[in-house]
């Protein structure tokens, strides 16, 4: 049985106090806390197995390589990838999207082509495309978002045309928590001859995600938002696409052969196979091992149960916050169509005041644009406060949060 109270015992940080109050961590959309198992896995690697991977025949290197590659296999299975070679280790979602932009986009997008985004995208799924569109000359189109923060599917589908070469969409909005039907849109994109990139930063940690069922061409996500370490993330890509793509960075690991050609005074190079073709230099080995341990932890909880817990907690929090006179909640009204995220405002106070007030009571919230400024323009907001939940959050914490906000209403 899924029991957040029992789960909390695995998270050392949740025992601490902040400003003389028990810590209530509601900033999970930014990053999540780490269970003892993940911390221990990284410590064990450095204490017992640390060596570089794929580079040496000695025992430690073999152990490190085995741990590194078995981590990749576990992560591949977690998202339903057919082969571990479809899993590229990167620093996080941002780097994963940049990898696609520079390795695929720079060579495949030209003047007259279009890339379709939505107005609910995180800046990491906007800025790389805006940057390279200035270089290669393709156009970017933005699908509208409805006033409740849900995607305007009709608009998205109408903007998918024969000119569209790539559609990029977050599966879950990091501001409103709205869940997008990326399977439906991947199908339409493919019918138009476009590829589909899914930003899974807010979905992979919170709900079952199967790349094969979604039929997405690329999926990007971050380890630190799913109980794993910072500095490690994943780009999933369909194998034929990865095989055809140019490398992202050059260096060791991504190369098979570098041979000096005396007559031409240059080096001939032959590239490694995916995934290593995209992993120049020494990878974040401990990070990958930590992420695999986080995946193991989530698998033990069950992703259906994780999602159910968050829907239940979100519904409860929306009910409690809905009882407050000065609090306005943004985003979808139905907790089941969102994923553990509640953006809100308090009349007469800036989001930063809300976050600072809650901080005084040990409650960690996010305030600002949450790296999604265009969506705040849709909501006509200067900024918003955001509470976001995860496996270790409880109804008791939501009750305390509502009490603190009630106190704030007196201001």
């Amino acid at each position, binding site marked *: 049985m899924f029991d957040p109270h029992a789960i909390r015992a695995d998270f050392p940080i949740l025992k601490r106090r902040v*400003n003389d109050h028990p810590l209530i961590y509601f900033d999970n959309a930014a990053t999540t806390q780490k269970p003892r198992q993940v911390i221990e896995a990284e410590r064990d690697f450095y204490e017992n197995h640390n060596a570089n991977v794929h580079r040496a025949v000695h025992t430690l290197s073999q152990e490190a390589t085995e741990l590194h590659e078995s981590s990749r296999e576990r992560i591949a299975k977690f998202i339903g990838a057919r082969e571990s070679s479809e899993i590229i280790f990167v620093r996080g979602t941002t780097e994963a999207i940049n990898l696609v932009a520079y390795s695929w986009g720079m060579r495949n997008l030209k003047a007259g082509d279009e890339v379709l985004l939505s107005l609910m995208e995180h800046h990491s799924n906007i800025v790389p495309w805006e940057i390279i569109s200035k270089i290669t000359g393709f156009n970017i189109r933005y699908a509208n978002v409805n006033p409740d923060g849900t995607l305007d599917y009709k608009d998205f589908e109408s903007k998918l045309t024969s000119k569209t070469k790539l559609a990029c969409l977050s599966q879950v909005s990091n501001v409103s928590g709205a869940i997008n039907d990326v399977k439906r849109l991947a199908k339409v994109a493919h019918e138009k001859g476009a590829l589909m990139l899914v930003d899974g930063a807010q979905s992979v940690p919170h709900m079952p995600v199967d790349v094969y069922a979604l039929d997405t061409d690329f999926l990007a996500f971050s380890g630190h938002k799913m109980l794993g370490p910072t500095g490690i993330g994943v780009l999933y890509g369909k194998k034929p696409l990865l095989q055809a793509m140019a490398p992202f960075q050059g260096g060791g690991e991504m190369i098979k052969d570098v041979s000096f050609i005396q007559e031409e005074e240059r080096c001939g190079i032959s590239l490694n196979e995916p995934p290593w073709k995209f992993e120049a230099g020494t990878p974040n080995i401990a990070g990958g091992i930590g992420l695999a341990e986080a995946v193991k932890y989530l698998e033990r909880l069950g992703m259906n149960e994780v999602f159910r817990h968050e829907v239940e907690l979100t519904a409860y929090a929306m009910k409690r916050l809905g009882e407050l006179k000065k609090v306005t909640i943004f985003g979808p009204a139905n907790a089941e169509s969102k994923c553990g995220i509640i953006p809100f405002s308090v009349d007469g106070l*800036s*989001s*930063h*005041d809300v976050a*600072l*007030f809650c*901080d*005084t009571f040990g409650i960690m919230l996010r*305030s*600002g*644009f*949450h*790296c999604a400024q265009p969506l*705040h323009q849709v909501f006509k*907001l*200067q*900024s918003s406060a955001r509470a976001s939940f995860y496996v270790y959050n409880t109804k008791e914490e939501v009750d305390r949060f509502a009490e603190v906000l009630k*106190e*704030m209403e*007196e*201001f």
Partner: protein
Amino acid sequence: MARTEGTCGAEKDIIVIFKYEKKEEAIAHILKKAALKNSIAGIIYELTFDGRSFRVYTSGKAIFRSIKDKEELNSILATLLL
């Protein structure tokens, strides 16, 4: 003062974080010099000083609005904290 941080959002507020061990002293100085407009149970103080409105939190943070630049902020803080 430990550091200042520009906020993310259209408001462009600046958050001032006082050194943890000096936060009570800093807040006491500020409360002496600025005019109190409102407060909640000694947790937030809404204050004005030199025509500028700002809020101080007992957790050792303050939020300043409509500040032109860091130089202006430093000048206000110097007067408030000394």
